[in-house]
């Protein structure tokens, strides 16, 4: 019987690897889920003398999309964001991450601006607070300003329709005393 031991161990390993194949090893789940969105006050992208305060977003369900003009994947995601904001009522804000202001503005001009406004995180300190590591990233905040979902990488239609839009709908129905 003990001769079956190696086979059993091997079977366990193989099962583990089957599981492993279904996961993306580079996906890092965010520890910020269900925590208050980290506070920040940043200048806006379009008007440097005006500020965006994360607290301003409270009271509504909002989406923060981290993007940059140097980011190739953002370029792929962007037209989809334009679509979504056309079709739905979304409070979409941008976090322009480690970019050159002029490049960012030009980029939005060329590709369209789906954002209510973008915050300009020139050095990336706010990005660090949000655990940004791979642009684009998207955060969904509820009315209380708690992060309820983080998506890493460009969003596609399937994820938007299956996960993001339903979540937003659900969050909008939440009442907070």
């Amino acid at each position, binding site marked *: 019987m003990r001769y079956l031991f190696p086979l059993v161990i091997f079977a366990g390993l193989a099962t583990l690897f089957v599981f492993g194949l279904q996961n993306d090893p580079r996906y*890092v789940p965010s520890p910020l889920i269900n925590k208050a969105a980290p506070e920040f006050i940043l200048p806006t992208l379009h008007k440097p003398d005006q500020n965006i305060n994360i607290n301003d977003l409270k009271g509504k369900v909002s989406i923060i999309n981290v993007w940059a003009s140097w980011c190739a994947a953002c370029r792929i995601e962007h037209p989809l964001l334009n679509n979504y904001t056309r079709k739905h009522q979304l409070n979409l804000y941008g976090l322009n991450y*480690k970019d050159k202001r002029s490049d960012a503005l030009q980029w939005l001009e060329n590709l369209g601006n789906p954002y209510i406004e973008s915050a300009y995180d020139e050095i990336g*300190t706010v990005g660090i607070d949000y655990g940004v590591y*791979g642009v684009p990233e998207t955060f969904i905040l509820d009315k209380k300003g708690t992060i309820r979902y983080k998506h890493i*990488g460009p969003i596609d239609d399937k994820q938007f329709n299956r996960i993001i839009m339903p979540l937003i709908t659900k969050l909008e129905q939440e009442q907070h005393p």
Partner: protein
Amino acid sequence: MKILPAILLFIYSLLSNFAYANDEPVIFENKNLEERYYFLIEEIRCLVCQNQSLADSNAPLAQDLRNEIFKMIQANKSNIEIMEFLVERYGDFILYRPPLKKNTWLLWFGPFLFLVIGFFVAVFVIKKQSRESQENK
């Protein structure tokens, strides 16, 4: 379609590698602080890269995090506080030395367990074959 994000992230990392990284040498006032810095940047993973530490990586995020660590050391934060800061934002994944928690007991005690089991197996086998040869005599 997991391949596309992977490829795109890869392209991203290539692009970000091109910009000349800001490689200003960090200067510490005393050797202790310097040692702590070099210790910490080996312990933290660069999340943008395919398995490199902050010490080894050229990525902009790695630079930013090295800067943060530098600033925190200067601000008299302890190693534990610095690591907590990073784990709060990026999760346990960012530490190369997995913290000893319930979900890492097997990891940290495993090798020792293997050793002990190994010894017992060896002793068992030696005794058994010795017994068997006695019986055969």
